[in-house]
């Protein structure tokens, strides 16, 4: 049996919820200036996960003429970055989902079609063999099989949690991604999307101080976060460069 955490655990005792953190220089990128400190603190893990997932699905797609990408939960922490990223990587059409109140917002992020998931599933709206990529960042039971019906030959299903399909379609790939935080150039790619204005609306639903980390976890675990839950740890130091 495989027990998953949807990210890899460091083998040492270093972590981010501390006033100071150790990092390998190869995994550290320069923060894009257009993002606030809070925004820049919520993007790296989900941004890298999205980028690796799209790469696994054949991105960038600029050499193809008509690429339709489905991103589940466009209002979530992962999805609201993935929708504009898919566009920046050359998707022609992005289809996503949101609750009623967030449909227009997710459209403003770049989605061409946003299905109100309180009324219907995105799968019920997709003709068979009609999409090229499904990036499912939610992984609800049944999603993978439903995605297989919608994907056309040559297409890709990428999941970051939940089960892959036990009935894959011939000619459609399916992959499960655990992102690697091993190359700052991937962060630079995301920073370039921010600098170019492709990713401009990084939503922080709430910010908690380190002393209330438990409340930040409660909010994330509620499962209804729009955007990301941020943790505020320190103020940036004055530039005391030696």
């Amino acid at each position, binding site marked *: *049996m495989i*027990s998953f*955490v*949807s*990210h*890899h*655990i*460091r*083998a*040492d*005792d*270093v*972590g*981010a*919820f*501390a*006033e*100071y*953190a*150790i*990092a*390998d220089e190869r*995994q*550290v*990128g*320069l*923060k*894009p*200036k257009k993002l606030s*400190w*809070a925004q*820049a*603190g*919520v993007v*790296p*893990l989900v941004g890298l996960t999205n980028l690796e997932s799209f790469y696994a699905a054949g991105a960038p797609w600029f050499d193809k003429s008509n690429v339709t990408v489905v991103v589940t939960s466009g209002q979530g*922490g992962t999805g609201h970055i993935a929708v504009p990223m898919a566009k920046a990587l050359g998707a022609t059409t992005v289809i996503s989902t949101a609750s009623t109140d967030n449909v227009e917002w997710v459209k403003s992020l770049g989605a061409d079609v946003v299905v109100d998931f309180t009324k219907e599933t995105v799968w019920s709206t997709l003709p068979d063999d009609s999409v090229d990529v499904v990036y499912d960042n939610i992984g609800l039971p049944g999603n993978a099989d439903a995605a297989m019906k919608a994907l056309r030959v040559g297409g890709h299903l990428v999941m970051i949690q939940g089960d892959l399909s036990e009935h894959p379609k011939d000619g459609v790939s399916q992959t*499960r991604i*655990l992102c*690697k*935080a*091993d190359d700052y150039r991937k*962060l630079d790619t995301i*920073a370039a999307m921010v600098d170019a204005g492709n990713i401009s609306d990084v939503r922080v639903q709430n910010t908690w101080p*380190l002393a*209330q*980390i*438990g*409340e930040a*976890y*409660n909010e*994330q675990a509620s499962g209804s976060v729009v955007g990301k*839950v*941020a943790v505020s*740890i*320190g103020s940036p*130091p004055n530039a*005391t*460069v*030696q």
Partner: protein
Amino acid sequence: MSLRCVGAALAATVAISGMACAGATSDLPSSMEAVVCVRELTHKNYSAMDDWLTPLDVPQPEKRQVLIKVVGSSVNPCDVDLVKSFEAMLARAFHKTLGFDVSGTIVAVGPDTDGRLKVGDEVWTDLGEMGLSSTEKIVEMGA
């Protein structure tokens, strides 16, 4: 659970004390506050984690490492998984400081870095482990 992971963690713990830095701001404190996984959560109310704030020595960067003064971070789904799951045992065993996402500034640079990053740089990163392929990670996560 892989023994390789256990060995690496012990080695890192031993090696972390007393290293010299190649470059650093002059006014670094010796201790800091960190959220350390100290015990199992008995139910899905994470408020008890507020008590996990723990004083730790400020670490010093080793070979090819940098020390970042953290400004912002976030709670990801995997952060929640980590404290409620089987993997939490691994984390607790090594008194792991939680969290992956970082925005902040570099305050010290370790030896043998390539010169790209300097003290004072405004940076972002995901502190996930380096160098494991996805397949290896899946095996390591497996029971």
